[in-house]
């Protein structure tokens, strides 16, 4: 997904780390990883540890980290948009206008990454970066602990107990699409984008599924 960007910028001190939030394990992600033929890091995160550490709620989200290991931009949507919400569910297609707008938004995001690598543009000052961080609440922290326990139970043949923990995690942290969709996927592959998913998306109303980055 990021190979072109990486190839273009790798000689300028740039690295891509792609982390699969994948509780079914690495083998489940392997076909996608092999198809991507990527030469950057492709890591497997069974417990969604990255989501816990960085307070993430969806995929794809990205964090920009500078040469000193400091967060230059906090977690934000990495090039995706809400146009998919208007797609024709029978044919799974979008209008030409929406397709164009979606591509343009993705291109603008990739251009921003290029500008950051080439000139430092778009890196936030410390105060602005701090102000843009989503805050971890005690409920979110508990949700991550329950998610960890739920995945462990699922992996150890205790599906019913695991599902109770995963459901409680989603109740505590309803903004996390990753927790809800991963639990749905563990229940049955495909369920994460099935009818229950679309109902949840519709229930968003005016709220965004992929809030755009404030570039």
């Amino acid at each position, binding site marked *: 997904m990021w190979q072109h960007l990486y190839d273009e910028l790798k000689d300028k001190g740039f690295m*891509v*780390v792609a982390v*699969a939030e994948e509780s079914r394990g690495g083998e489940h992600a*392997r076909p996608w990883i092999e198809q991507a033929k990527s030469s950057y*890091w492709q890591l497997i995160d069974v417990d969604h540890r990255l989501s816990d550490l960085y307070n993430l709620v969806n995929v794809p989200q990205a964090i920009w980290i500078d040469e000193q*290991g400091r967060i230059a931009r906090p977690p934000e949507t990495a090039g995706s948009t809400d146009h998919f919400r208007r797609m024709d569910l029978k044919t799974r297609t979008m209008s030409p206008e929406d397709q164009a707008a979606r591509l343009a938004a993705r291109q603008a995001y990739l251009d921003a*990454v290029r500008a950051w690598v080439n000139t430092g543009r778009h890196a936030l000052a410390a105060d602005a970066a*701090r102000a843009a*961080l989503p805050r971890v609440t005690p409920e979110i922290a508990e949700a*991550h602990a329950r998610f960890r326990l739920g995945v462990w139970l699922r992996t150890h043949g205790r599906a019913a107990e695991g599902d109770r923990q995963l459901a409680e995690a989603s109740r505590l942290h309803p903004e996390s699409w990753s927790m809800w969709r991963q639990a749905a996927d563990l229940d049955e592959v495909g369920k994460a984008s099935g009818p229950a998913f679309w109902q949840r998306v519709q229930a968003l109303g005016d709220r965004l599924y992929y809030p755009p980055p404030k570039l």
Partner: protein
Amino acid sequence: MTKILTSTAEHEVAARDGLWVSATDAERAIGWTLKPEGMCRADVCVPMPAAAVGRNEVDLAAFWSKLGGPVVATDTHDVWALGGPASERNAALEGLEAPDFTLPDIDGVPRTLSALRGKKVFLATWASW
């Protein structure tokens, strides 16, 4: 045996009455040492209420709650998860130093974020689902 899941690891301990464990098991599982002044790690000591400390043993659930960390368990209390405290997560992020982690690649090779110091890193998530 009782299983304790931390953010990065899992440990088997001998626990009784919830999560009362020996000082040795406590140190092995969470890296905090029981001392007369409380539970200690590096140069930090957290004083413990008398009710949560016994003769060379400690109520880990009580200690973890005191740190502000979530403590969750199965109904039968055979598996526990001790999560990162919200305050710790927020402090780490607000410091703006990217929280470090080690995760395996598809071939099982462990990769550590901080090994990339000196480069600009685009850290992105995805999923098959």
